[in-house]
């Protein structure tokens, strides 16, 4: 089997997964949530006399960021386990394809949905921003676009984490584990600070190891820089993108290894 055959298989699985997800009710619930946050931000900005565009910016960016990550977790958590529970995976794996190709194909379908969702919400967000402020051009900073790209990358990272969990546990447990990692991942610097304060050496080393080993989602969070239009360095952007892609690759590979060991 050559590379183009593998690519063709992954593309086929990805497309079927993409259309399967966009017919899923979860997606629309999350989109509705994001739209509600947009509207809430717009209404709140009308009540403010001082820098109303910042409120729209904060609410809007949070809506894009959260909804992308929520889709990543909620859909990724059932991406593989449902395939095995419904035996759809059996029909696919009885073909000359590997389990790794199945996972990668399914994940690529989820990524297509994330990109579509991200593009739609980002468009809505920028549209609302344009409607709500007269100083629209001033608000559109490079940090905002970097922040949106990093939000997409973060959603791919949490989706890969959820997909990894879904290779060996149930959908609900995958959601719980993934959200837990999402929350901890946004507080890694707190963990490091806490570790520095602990006096017991063993506990300090252990906490430091945990803080270092867990995915650090703070690399994708530049909310404050967007709100205050602060610059973001190229080194930070490149570092965050590389870090994100490495985590995605790592979790998908781990998922491939786990699912190979899974008994059917």
């Amino acid at each position, binding site marked *: *089997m050559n590379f183009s*055959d593998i690519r*063709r*298989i992954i593309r*086929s*699985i990805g497309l*079927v997964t993409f*259309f*399967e997800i966009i*017919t899923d009710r979860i997606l629309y619930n999350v989109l509705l949530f994001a739209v509600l946050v947009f509207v809430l931000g717009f209404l709140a900005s009308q009540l403010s006399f001082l820098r109303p565009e910042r409120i729209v910016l904060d609410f809007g960016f949070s809506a894009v960021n959260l909804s992308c990550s929520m889709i990543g977790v909620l859909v990724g958590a059932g991406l593989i386990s449902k395939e095995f529970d*419904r*035996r*759809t995976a*059996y*029909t*696919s*794996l*009885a*073909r*000359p*394809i590997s389990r790794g190709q199945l996972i990668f194909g399914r994940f690529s379908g989820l990524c297509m949905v994330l990109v579509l969702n991200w593009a739609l919400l980002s468009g809505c967000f920028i549209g609302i921003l344009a409607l709500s402020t007269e100083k629209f051009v001033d608000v559109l900073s490079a940090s905002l676009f970097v922040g949106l790209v990093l939000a997409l990358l973060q959603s791919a990272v949490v989706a890969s984490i959820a997909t990894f969990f879904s290779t060996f546990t149930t959908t609900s447990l995958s959601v719980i584990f993934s959200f837990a990692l999402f929350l901890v991942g946004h507080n890694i610097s707190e963990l490091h600070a806490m570790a520095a304060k602990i006096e017991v050496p063993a506990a300090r080393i252990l906490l430091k190891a945990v803080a270092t080993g867990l995915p650090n989602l703070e690399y994708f969070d530049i909310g404050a820089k967007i709100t205050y239009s602060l610059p973001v360095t190229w080194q930070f952007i490149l570092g965050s993108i590389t870090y994100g892609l490495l985590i995605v690759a790592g979790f998908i590979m781990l998922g491939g290894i786990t699912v190979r060991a899974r*008994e*059917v």
Partner: protein
Amino acid sequence: MLEVLGVKHGFRAGFFQKRVMVLDGLNFSVTRGSVFGLLGSNGAGKTTLIHLVVGLTKPVAGRITINDVCSLDRAAKSMLGYLPERPYFPDHLTGEGLLKYFGRLSGLTDDLIRKRIPETLEEVGLAKAGEVQLKKYSKGMLQRIGIAQAIIHDPELLVLDEPMSGLDPLGRKEMRELIIRLAARGKTVFFSSHVIHDVEMICDSVALLRNGKVARIGTIGELLSKGPLQTEIAFTGVVMDQVSCLYGLTSLQSIPDGLRGIVSGNDAVKDVIQALIKLNARILWVTPVRPSLEDLFIGETS
């Protein structure tokens, strides 16, 4: 075509992940072009064996080959088509979309897929439903599209897990006819079923699984000939009291023409007939009673 050699398999269960054996040293082969039925009660290991045959999992011990290629090998998977028990397919797809998807997973080119889709839909009787979404398919149609996805790449071996499960009598009849048609086209069919009647009607050979072992195997004729031989004798000209004490004659019953009884064993038939003639009875018919596969199944599994 299909060789199962010393296959053992089990699952890890419990806190200490102890392996519980489900299949214990299976040995049999399926010849090319035959329809092979796998019978067994719930938990006998039929689905586990099918998962091993289609290469979904690796046996703990032993080997399964398809045309001398290990079942785990990609080449072996290209030679087989598989329909799982109670299959679920992405229901947003149409029948044609599903076949296109599985055709690509089977490594067919897009040109070949375009050629094969109408042929395959015709084969399973879904020529008019190809553009209908699977969510609108009935249970029988889903089973048929399941067969279609299994044969889209024209495999030599078809592995069907409970293909008649959940179908009404008409659906089962259609499925039987479809399997017979596929076998007539030279496909080797290996399938499991609970419905003994279906197995008896379409299989050339049968294996009976019990507690993870092959309890009986052979052609239908061979298996039934090994069952207990019984003979039905009907006669008239005597009353029930005269023959009720005859040795070997059991299950005596009145019938409109006279009386009817069952005799077990060849020697007893001769003795009973001679005794009846001595009593001036007139013999109406002597018919060997062939045990059914169901009798054999119940005898083996109970």
